[in-house]
């Protein structure tokens, strides 16, 4: 074991450091186990892209809701009961045949938790965060999203002030589907804007 003073961070296994930190905070009465586990459980099970999929399917089937969603994303999303940390300043951007939106957080990992849950590892990865700004078409093509030269690609940088959600295009051939059926088509990647929704 090396000297205490110069090994503050990388030498110790992070699992051990996290456990040590938690035990100290518990001892000092700054947190309690129930609250910690409540947050873990919520973000592992209850909050995720299925929430955002419900928002999208409702917007596809209810024009008035769609309008409210595009006008005040935070309020329209809260109508469906989705709110909480990192969902306070939501802006919803709509993909159309002529405009394609894609979302990134260039500085860290800002992401709309109430509708998408916690971000996937690729969203937090330095490569995605740097490249999608510089060469969005190339990055999208790697995701299988080939866009014609006539399509305007807009990259949105989420931050603590604004968190973006993409309202993807409803795919052709889904006219007969109900709102509940449409929910199943909408994936996380389509609401970040790296993919398009596919018809079944």
């Amino acid at each position, binding site marked *: 074991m090396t000297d205490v003073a110069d090994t503050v961070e990388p030498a110790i296994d992070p*699992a051990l450091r996290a456990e040590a930190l938690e035990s100290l905070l518990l001892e000092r009465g700054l947190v309690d186990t129930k609250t910690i586990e409540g947050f873990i459980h919520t973000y592992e099970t209850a909050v995720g892209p299925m929430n955002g999929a419900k928002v999208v399917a409702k917007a596809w089937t209810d024009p008035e809701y769609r309008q409210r969603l595009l006008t005040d994303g935070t309020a329209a999303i809260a109508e469906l009961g989705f709110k909480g940390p990192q969902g306070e300043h939501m802006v919803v951007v709509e993909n159309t045949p002529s405009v394609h939106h894609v979302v990134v957080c260039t500085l860290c990992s800002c992401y709309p938790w109430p509708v998408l849950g916690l971000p996937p590892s690729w969203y937090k990865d330095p490569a995605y965060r740097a490249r999608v700004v510089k060469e969005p078409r190339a990055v999208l093509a790697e995701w299988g999203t080939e866009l014609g030269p006539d399509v305007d690609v807009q990259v949105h940088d989420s931050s603590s002030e604004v968190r973006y959600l993409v309202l993807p295009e409803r795919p052709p051939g889904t006219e007969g589907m109900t709102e509940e059926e449409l929910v199943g088509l909408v994936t996380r990647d389509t609401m970040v804007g790296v993919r398009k929704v596919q018809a079944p």
Partner: protein
Amino acid sequence: MQLDVDGPAAPPRSNGELVFAEPWEGRAFGLTMALVHGAVLDYETFRTALMERIAAWEVAPPPGEEFRYYRCWLAALEQVLGRAGLVSPDDVLRRSVEFAARPAGHDHRHDDHDHSH
């Protein structure tokens, strides 16, 4: 023990991907949110520290080390708690060393983790 793929013991997945790659990542996340919830920690202060940690890694990535988001997260959490005078880096280190010295077979709460990196 039977493999539980859908029940409460199943690893959490989001679109097929684990929400937390290792159990300690979930603890670090839950701990941070609990501190924010209890107004012990300001989320924006934490987020600023997290951005600094990520930027520092990107400026000088350790050779051969892949980016590990929750390592930055944990380091940021330790940093803000240290600066707030709530838990010093020395305290964390001493407690970590104590835990590391537990006898083999001790019932660790965290699972065996990947030592390959």
